[in-house]
């Protein structure tokens, strides 16, 4: 794991937390389009994390 990947992992963790807030908002608002968008984004972050840590 190189220093760049370490920074990237920290950024992904921050993005994940922010995405969770957005997902919560979409769910409360009952906005299916925004909800599925954020949901897809969360799943993409998770894939990226596993890509980095191997």
């Amino acid at each position, binding site marked *: *794991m*190189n*220093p760049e*990947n*370490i*920074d990237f*992992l*920290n950024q*992904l*963790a*921050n993005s*994940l*937390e922010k*995405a*969770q807030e957005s*997902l*919560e908002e*979409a*769910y*409360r608002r*009952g*906005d*299916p389009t925004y*909800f*599925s968008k954020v*949901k897809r984004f*969360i*799943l993409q972050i*998770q894939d990226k*994390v*596993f890509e980095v*840590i191997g």
Partner: protein
Amino acid sequence: MMKEKNEYLTDLRELIQKEAKIIRAIASAGNGLVQSKAREEKNMINSQIESMKTLLKRTTEEISSILDDMSVMKPLPISKVNIQKTKPQKDYSSQNSTLKVGDMYERSKPKKSELKKEITDLEKDILKRLKKKEKKEKIVRKKNQVDT
């Protein structure tokens, strides 16, 4: 079993916070791995990272299952068609007065105008013939009375 709306949100929030913590811990361990020079220390950090990866996988799976269970439905559009109010039907059974046979007959009896509409040409001919027959019978009866 389906969860309540708030239960999903609480569970998801906790799991994502846990996931972010694990990711940061892995990043921190990775930083330690870069800085450490001793082999033993590196091995120790690597094993820590491996166990954190397992935990991260489990947490990710839990999050995915919650996300699959959560669904947001589009509200149905409000119909602009006015539904006409129908008059409530009278409840005859609850009324004190008893229903007479005559009343039923009156209700079921069709109007004269309706009857006229229903009579066909063929039926008209039959009626004419019957009237003629009746007239002839009357004449015969009168003749018989005169003869006696």
